């Protein structure tokens, strides 16, 4: 699935929920399902700047595609980073760099996905793009 298709898929799911509370509940469930991040990788060099909760992001290159594994110490934030990581995983670096999709605009996720500089999700998106950009360069 392309980045666009994945984003549309998630939008469809999130649209089912009538309010922020239920959207957050969905993210909490996503977070609880995500057990793939090894606790020993909660290292400072994988940490993404974020003020309110800690977020870790581990990128990996396999068969010319990028994969991201992520974690957070807060549940809602973990659900969100899990979702973002799955959107950009299994994609070519060029596709990530050229993708013009603005998740902040696409997803209406209230206070948790805002372009606040100190927001973990915001920094994570920036880190993913920078990582992809450096690979091409």
């Amino acid at each position, binding site marked *: 699935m392309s980045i666009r298709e994945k984003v549309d898929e998630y939008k469809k799911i999130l649209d089912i929920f009538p*309010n*922020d*509370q239920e959207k*957050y*509940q969905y993210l*909490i469930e996503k977070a609880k399902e995500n057990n793939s991040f090894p606790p020993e990788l909660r290292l400072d060099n994988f940490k993404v700047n974020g*003020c*309110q*909760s800690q977020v870790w992001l581990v990128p990996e290159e396999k068969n010319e595609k990028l994969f991201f594994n992520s974690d957070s*110490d*807060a*549940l*809602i*934030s973990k659900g969100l980073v899990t979702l973002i990581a799955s959107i950009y995983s299994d994609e070519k670096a060029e596709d990530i760099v050229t993708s013009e999709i603005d998740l902040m605009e696409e997803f209406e996720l*209230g*206070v*948790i996905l805002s372009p606040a500089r100190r927001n973990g999700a915001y920094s994570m998106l920036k880190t993913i793009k920078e990582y992809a950009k450096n690979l091409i360069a």
Partner: protein
Amino acid sequence: MSKFSEIKKDFPIFERNINGNKLTYLDSGATSQKPNSVIDKMNDIYKFNNANVHRGTYVLSSETTQEYESVRNKLQSFLNASDSDEIIFTKGTTEALNFLANSIANKLMGEGDEIILSEIEHHANIIPWQMVAEKYKLNINYVKVNDDFSLDLDDLSSKLSSKTKVVSIVGESNLSGMLPDIKEINNLVRSNSDSLLIIDGAQLVPHRKVDVQDLGIDFLVFSGHKMLGPTGIGVVWGKKELLNSLDPVYGGGDMIEEVHYDKATWAPVPHKFEAGTPPYVEAIGLGAAVDYLGNLGMSEVEKHSDELREYGRKVLLDIDGVNVIHSEQDIAGCTFGMYVDGVHATDLSVMLDTHGVAVRAGHHCVQPFHRKLGIDATIRSTAYIYNDKEDIDTLKSAIISSVEMLR
């Protein structure tokens, strides 16, 4: 009916609807909401009076200057200061403490001298001292906090000495609501040292009657925005002879008597400390806030705060699974730090937001104290004059349902 029952009507923000709920604002420790009288006053200045202060010889400037200077008189009587020249305007508590740290260290301190703070200080009352300590080779000691969140005054006594030049202590804890016995601290400081005593009144002044002469302290600092006033304005109150003896930290227009190319002489206090165009509209807004609080009466404000605190103690202290950081002394502020084992504070505050409940999550700029308690982050509920028991009930039920979802 109490003066407070209809008070939300004075605050237009409470007309807002948040996520389909009425707004339950419990973050006044971060900043207070503003009544119409403050908002209108500032609007009126911009619309009908605006002109720079102390500069023009025309009607507008003279009116604005009078309004601006009259706020000093309002604050003088609000604090029972002996002279309106003792009121210095700053940007807020943080700038006030930076100013005092720099001015005092520069003028009155030397290598090896000591500063005493406490373990529960806000970063605004730690970092400026750390910065000057580094520059002037000073030492900082921290008064211990007891398990009930009170200050260990024996520890303070043992740390005071002839080397102590500054004691700077919070007047009301922004996490536990603890109110230190300032008079007792003042006595200890006077009898064991020649130190100056500064009180960080950021949380104290909005909530309780403060009489600076009765307390006997040397300096009091606070922020306008936490007491119904606008952002960008704060106050240093200081004893006049001390203010006279200190040098300015900022230079510029409006703070000088005579300027030559090689030197300048300072204007008398308070103006020597107020370089450049002051935030005069904000100061006038603060004046309107002081009027509003004065009309309610600070003893009524205290009583209201005490009632909400008692109700908060009744309702919040025994929620299943919720740990509370709150002063165990009889009299305290209406401030409750809370954390739930296994639940991240930001998750909790995001879920509370879906109920229209606004609280702060994080370390509230008292990171060393959180570290000492062994917790990363808390949520904090701080109530003010416009809050009522229903708000505390809403908080409680929102916490219960949010924790259920997050477990």
